[in-house]
C-alpha cells in the first residue's frame, strides 16, 4: 500500500478560500441560498466553508444544514456491510431557494444522485449546485459534474482518495492511497 499527499494543509486552506470566493461570486449575500453538507464526510467541508464565509468574508445569516442520504441510496441490501445512517439537520425549508450540496470527494456520483432525491423531502429548490473538494475524473457512473471543484484528480479504481480534517485531530491533508 503506497500513500501520496495530494494536498497539504496550506494548499487546502488556499482552495477553501477560493471556493468561498467563487460561492460569493454566484450567491452574493446568500439571502436566497442554503448550504447543505452531505453526511457523513461532507459536513467537515461544509462547516469549514461556512466558517470562512462568516469570518473572513463577513457573510451574515448563512443557512447551513446537513443531509443524510442513507435511506435514499441505491445499494441497500447490495453491499457486504449494512448501511450506517447519520443525522439530518435541516431547520429551514429549501422551497424556492438555491441549494449548494457540499461533499469532500466526488467519485461515482451515486451519493449526489441520492442527495438529489433526498432533498426533495424538504421542498422544491429553484436550483441545486454541487461543490466538492476533490473531483475524481474518469470514475463517474452517472452524468453528474461539480459546479465548484477544489482539485481534479486522476485516480484509478484501486486507488482511494482520503480527506483528513483538522477537526478529526489530524492536520488538513488529502491523500491518494494505492491499495
Amino acid at each position, binding site marked *: 500500500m503506497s500513500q501520496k499527499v495530494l494536498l497539504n494543509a496550506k494548499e487546502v486552506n488556499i482552495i477553501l478560500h477560493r471556493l468561498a470566493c467563487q460561492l460569493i461570486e454566484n450567491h452574493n449575500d446568500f439571502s436566497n441560498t442554503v448550504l447543505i453538507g452531505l453526511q457523513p464526510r461532507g459536513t467537515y467541508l461544509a462547516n469549514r466553508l461556512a466558517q470562512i464565509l462568516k469570518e473572513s468574508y463577513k457573510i451574515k445569516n448563512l443557512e447551513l444544514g446537513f443531509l*443524510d442520504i*442513507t*435511506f*435514499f*441510496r441505491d445499494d*441497500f*441490501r*447490495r453491499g457486504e*456491510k*449494512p*448501511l*450506517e*445512517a*447519520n*443525522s*439530518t439537520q435541516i431547520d429551514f*425549508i429549501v422551497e424556492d431557494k438555491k441549494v449548494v450540496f457540499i461533499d469532500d470527494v466526488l467519485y461515482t456520483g451515486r451519493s449526489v444522485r441520492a442527495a438529489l*432525491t*433526498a432533498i*426533495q*423531502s*424538504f*421542498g422544491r429548490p429553484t436550483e441545486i449546485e454541487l461543490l466538492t473538494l476533490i473531483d475524481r475524473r474518469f470514475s463517474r457512473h452517472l452524468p453528474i459534474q461539480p459546479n465548484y471543484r477544489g482539485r481534479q484528480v486522476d485516480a484509478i479504481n484501486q486507488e482511494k482518495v482520503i480527506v483528513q480534517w483538522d477537526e478529526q485531530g489530524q492536520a488538513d491533508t488529502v491523500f491518494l492511497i494505492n491499495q
Partner: protein
Amino acid sequence: MSELSVNHLLGIKYLNKNDIKLIFETADHFKEVINRPIKKVPSLRDITIANLFFENSTRTKLSFELAEKRLSADVINFSASQSSVKKGETLIDTVNNILSMKVDMVVMRHPNPGAGVFLSKHIKASIINAGDGAHEHPTQALLDSYSIRERLGEVKGKKVVIVGDILHSRVALSNIFALQLQGAEVMVCGPKTLIPKYISSLGVKVETNLLKALNWCDVANMLRVQNERMDVSYFPSTREYTQQYGVSKALLDSLNKEVVIMHPGPINRGVEITSDVADSDQAIILDQVQNGVAVRMAVIYLLASKIKQ
C-alpha cells in the same frame, strides 16, 4: 454499523442489548424522517411485506402499514376474518400461498402463543411478531422503552410499574424482557387473580397496592383489562377494579413526584385511567403512538437489510 443478531423479530427474549440500542438509534433517524414535509424514503422499494392479522387489531396494523409505506415497501394485507382460514386452511398453507407470490417479510398477529416461532421454522421469509396470544408483542415493548428513553433520557436505572391485567397481557411480558435487558427495575401491580403465579421468577417485584406501586416508580404503564380474553370473572366488578387500580388525577397529585403515565391502547377511559390523566402532560400515550411508527420502521429496515438478494 453493526446489524441485528436475529433474522426475525419473534420476541424480545431473542434480542440482546445491542440489538435494542441499534433499533433505537435507527428509530431516531426515522423519527426525523417522519417529521419532514415529505415523510417517505425509498429504501425498501424492492421489498414486499405481507401483514397477516389472524386476530383483530387497529393501531398495530395501521402503525405497521404506515411504517412499511413510509419505507416504500409494497404491502399486502390479510385478515383472517375475510379469508380461507375460515374454510379450514392451515397456517403454513396460508402463509406459503402468500409467499409464493414473492413476499419477503411477514408481519403476523396470531391468537396462539408461539405462532411466529412455529412459522419461522417452516418458511423462508423474515417474520415480525405483531402479537401472539398472551405471549409477546415485541414492537410494542420496543416503542414503550423508546418513549421512556425519549421522556426520561434513558431506560437504565428507571423504575417501571406495569399495572393491570398482567395475566392476559403480551405487552406486559415483552415489556418485562425489554426493560430488564436495558437495566430498568420492573414491578407488576394488579389484583392477585390477574398476576401470573410465578411471575416473580422473572425477577420482577409484585405489588397489589397501587398507591405503593406509584410511590415506588418513575413510570407507570397502565394496561387495559382484556375482557375478551377472560373466560371467568377475575374481579368482582369493573367499578371495584377502577377504585383499586384505576389512575386518577387526584391520585397522581397526592404523590410527591411526577410519574410518567403510559398506555398501549386502546384506553378504557374511566376504567384503568381517567380522562384528565390520559389527556394530561404526564401521559405520553400519543407520543407512544408516534414513536410506534418510527420504531417499526427501524425494525423493518434492519431486518430487511439482512434479506439477501
